[in-house]
């Protein structure tokens, strides 16, 4: 008698739980559909993008609708995932054998998955004539150990943004004095600091940027077969010394070392920085800091003795786990075809990876009423030919990157001389590369 009430309570709870689980039926049915795939059979593919909603909702949905019209047997289910959490979500999905079919990833993260054979090799899945439709440098940006793990989507090259008002305030001429090289940037930093107390130049050292700066200044990262560090040279030392000097003389903000790229854009929007490389943020500046946007003049990216400029590539991968490989690749090609990419790049200042789309006058001619957004796009397209992927995908990339970052931090914070720090980085790299 006593326990009856308790047991009935437990029963009620159990029923409650089960009834709430009930609506899971239709989702498992959806998974079932996926199994029947292949050429002409019915297929549902899951497509994940990185944070494109809500700005590009109409665009992506339009592409999907067009694709489904052309391929009535294929259904595309789109999910937009926050960029910061994409790696966790995708890894959870892959590890439980429930990966999506088409995913937008950046090459660094994708190369790690490719290294573990988790991605479809596009050299085999894509016909050679289709491969030729893409900018060659962009196609090759997605190669590791001799396989191509992705189809390139949109690109960007480095464009500096300059706040004309600060240049004028410092007695500089924005048309003439805008820096093209690292040495120019140092001069601007000095003048601006002396005249206005603001920062003339804000280089970010986040993520792979330290490595990029070094390559641009003429250092090679590794020997040819990638087994040994090769940056402990005059050029490498120069890079370490350059940033150490700027930092210790307070010519660049302290956040250069610790902040992520967000801090560069925040300070630029606050009118505290004259020049930084962050043209991908141009739309954001337009929305958050309209007065700064008005004063913004885009210019070619800052580089060093090598004259090299970097290209960044966003790509589309198809995980090996997909059960509709053919349909997935088909959709990936459709999404990245010239027509669809051209439409995409009209919505935001990016460059298409499809050669045909790039020939559009939209990327070459600035109209009368060209805004900074348009100038960024045209500048970016103009330097595409001279830009390349500076940091090729490497094994244990994240560890290598971190080791270099730690070493240059030691130098900048004054714990070591630049040469000592460079020696430390070399030793760390040799150890990691020998794994």
């Amino acid at each position, binding site marked *: 008698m*006593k*326990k009856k009430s*308790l*047991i009935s309570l*437990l029963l009620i*709870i159990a029923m409650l739980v089960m009834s709430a689980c009930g609506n899971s039926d239709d989702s498992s049915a959806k998974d079932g559909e996926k199994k029947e795939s292949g050429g002409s059979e019915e297929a549902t593919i899951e497509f994940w993008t990185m944070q494109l909603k809500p700005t590009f909702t109409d665009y992506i949905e339009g592409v999907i609708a067009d694709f489904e019209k052309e391929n009535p047997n294929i259904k595309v289910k789109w999910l937009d995932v926050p960029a910061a959490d994409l*790696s*966790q979500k995708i*890894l*959870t999905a*892959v*590890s439980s054998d429930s990966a999506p079919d088409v995913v937008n990833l950046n090459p660094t993260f994708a190369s*790690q*998955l490719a290294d*573990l*054979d*988790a991605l479809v090799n596009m050299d085999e899945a894509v016909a050679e004539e289709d491969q030729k439709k893409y900018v060659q440098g962009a196609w090759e940006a997605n190669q590791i150990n001799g396989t191509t793990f992705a189809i390139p989507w949109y690109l960007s090259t480095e464009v500096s943004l300059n706040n004309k008002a600060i240049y004028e305030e410092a007695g500089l001429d924005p048309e003439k004095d805008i820096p093209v090289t690292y040495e120019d940037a140092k001069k601007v930093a000095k003048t601006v600091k002396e005249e206005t107390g603001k920062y003339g130049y804000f280089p970010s050292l986040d993520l792979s940027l330290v490595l990029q700066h070094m390559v641009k200044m003429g250092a090679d990262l590794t020997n040819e077969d990638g087994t040994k560090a090769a940056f402990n040279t005059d050029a490498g030392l120069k890079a370490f010394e350059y940033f150490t000097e700027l930092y210790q003389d307070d010519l660049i*903000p*302290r*956040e250069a*070392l*610790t*902040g*992520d790229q967000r*801090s560069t854009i*925040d300070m630029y929007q606050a009118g505290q920085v004259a020049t930084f490389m962050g043209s991908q943020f141009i739309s954001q500046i337009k929305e958050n800091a309209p007065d700064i946007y008005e004063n913004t003049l885009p210019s070619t990216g800052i580089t060093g003795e090598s004259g090299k400029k970097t290209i960044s590539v966003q790509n589309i991968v198809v995980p090996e786990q997909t059960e509709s490989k053919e349909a997935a690749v088909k959709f990936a090609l459709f999404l990245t075809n010239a027509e669809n990419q051209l439409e995409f790049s009209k919505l935001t200042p990016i460059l298409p990876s499809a050669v045909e789309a790039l020939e559009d006058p939209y990327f070459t001619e600035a109209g009368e009423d060209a805004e900074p957004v348009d100038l960024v796009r045209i500048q970016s397209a103009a330097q595409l030919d001279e830009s390349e992927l500076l940091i090729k995908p490497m094994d*244990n990339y*994240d*560890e290598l990157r971190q080791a270099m970052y*730690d070493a240059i*931090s*030691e130098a900048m*914070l004054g*714990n070591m001389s630049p040469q000592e720090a460079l020696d430390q980085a070399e030793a760390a790299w040799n150890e990691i590369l020998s794994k």
Partner: protein
Amino acid sequence: MRTNKLTPYLFLLPGLIILGAFIFYPMLQAFWLSMTDYNMIADAEFVGTTNYENLFQDDLFWKTLTNTFIYLIGVVPALVIIPIFLAVLVNQKLKGIGFFRSAYYIPVVTSLVVAGIAWDWVYKENGLLNYVLDILNIISEPIHWLTSTQTAIFAVMVVTIWKGLGYYMIIYLAGLQSIPNDLYEAADIDGANWWQKVTRVTIPMLMPFVLIVTIMSSIAAMKVFEEIYIMTGGGPLHSSETLVFYIYTEAFDRLNMGYASAAGVVLFLITLVLSIINIKFMGKDNTA
């Protein structure tokens, strides 16, 4: 007692089923993975104690572990003691006290992503804090709160404390309600002043809740991640990097899930020992 032997287990059953499926079993998995080379894509292969051996030789592991302890020592006393006084303060019968309670609770519900930006304004080189200290003539040149190896971790601690005060205040507030008024009346008769009542009645009667707050805030401090991720990214030079941050990068940036699990198991064991010491030390009188 005349109750059936099964009764306690029946009460525990629903909770234990849930914990079993969603935590105990995954925990066992994590223990197992810590002895494999799991990378979340290929099948896991048993590697024995290799991960642990590597871990103990990893300087960064020791550094982040030390930082975690610094965090623990810095944050826990503040979060155990200050909220008691806040709770006493907002337990007054005053007009508009509900407003103040809510105001103190606001940091708990403010997302750290946005709070992080506001705190950036405070900590910047030419930010609010340096401005105030300058006016008060305490400093002659600005302190780089978030960008120097000496101060970054402490600057983030303040944010953790700011966010935790209201949380633990509510726990104490609930505890205060359960103190019988008779005790205060008796203290009044004895002529006790306000401070004597706090130390002789309130705090002893709150002990069960002090125990919760101590254990909860210690565990939270051992696992601190989000503040660091948002405010300093662990820098400069790993000076504010904690163990969970390290675990996160190893797992999801480098795909070393097996290695990360080993670090997680070490964190687990340390936290467990700490909690047991806490319970033994503080919980004696009230563990029935």
